[in-house]
């Protein structure tokens, strides 16, 4: 009873800021996804490009963020958001490559703007050779190598992003590296 009287006499707490049509949870979700976007968008677009998304790298990442926004309330741990985004990008790039393989019946160039003059000027011959060699690898091996050697992820994190076991990651990385070394040797 006492508590009720005290709370009734206390001044009303300040109302949380509300945007039109959005409740507090919506505002929080929007803020969190925006924070993740600011911090990780650039890196994810680069990851998508290195994995072979080509000119669709931005669209792939946009789709991953929209997916995260939709599933935000079901995400148990906000710290899992970045691994979730990485896994979404890997999956979307793989799906896109399968789709293109069916539609065009030939592999897609690795970097997004490979034909642009700006890109040509920036990427030297030795790096282009690596890009070409990477492009010829199977999807899984390329993903394992990019996640391991560009993002410096551990085996467990790579496995989480690719949706496979750490043992399979080890196998894909070893095979990919051996194939890459052979391809680069052949180009000498």
């Amino acid at each position, binding site marked *: 009873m006492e508590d009720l009287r005290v709370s009734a006499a206390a001044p009303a707490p300040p109302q949380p800021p509300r945007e039109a049509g959005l409740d507090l949870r919506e505002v929080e979700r929007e803020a969190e*996804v*925006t924070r993740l*976007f*600011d911090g990780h*968008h*650039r890196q994810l*677009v*680069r*990851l998508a*490009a*290195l994995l072979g998304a080509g000119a669709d*790298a*931005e669209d792939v*990442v*946009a789709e991953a*963020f*929209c997916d995260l*926004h*939709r599933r935000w309330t079901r995400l148990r741990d906000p710290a899992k958001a970045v691994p979730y985004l990485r896994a979404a990008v890997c999956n979307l790039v793989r799906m896109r490559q399968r789709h293109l393989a069916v539609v065009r019946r030939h592999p897609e160039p*690795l*970097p*997004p*703007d490979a034909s642009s003059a700006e*890109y040509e000027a*920036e*990427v*030297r011959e*030795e*790096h282009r050779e*690596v*890009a070409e060699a*990477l492009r010829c690898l199977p999807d899984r091996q390329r993903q394992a*190598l*990019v996640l391991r*050697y*560009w993002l410096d992820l551990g085996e467990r994190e790579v496995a989480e992003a690719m949706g496979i076991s750490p043992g399979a990651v080890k196998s894909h990385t070893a095979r990919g*590296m*051996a194939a*890459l*070394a052979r391809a*680069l*040797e052949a180009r*000498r």
Partner: protein
Amino acid sequence: MTHPETEERLRRSLGVLAEAVRPDDGAYRRVQAIWRRRERRRRLLMVVLAVVIIAVADALGLWLLNRVAAGDPVIFQGPAPAGAVVPHPPR
């Protein structure tokens, strides 16, 4: 070429290739517009679905009531069971 050499070259090249990728500066506005539009569409779909379910349930109920002839019991068929207390209507 040994694997440590290849690893080093791969790291270097991936770094350079990644640096050459420059995301669009207006990407945030574009993506935010997409996820907001999808959220609105999802909510609208939920509302439409709820309205349809309620409307169908109402229509079904009205149809069943309409089939019963005037004076027939709507819920129970036959006489009330023995010992059942039938409340008197208020005077």
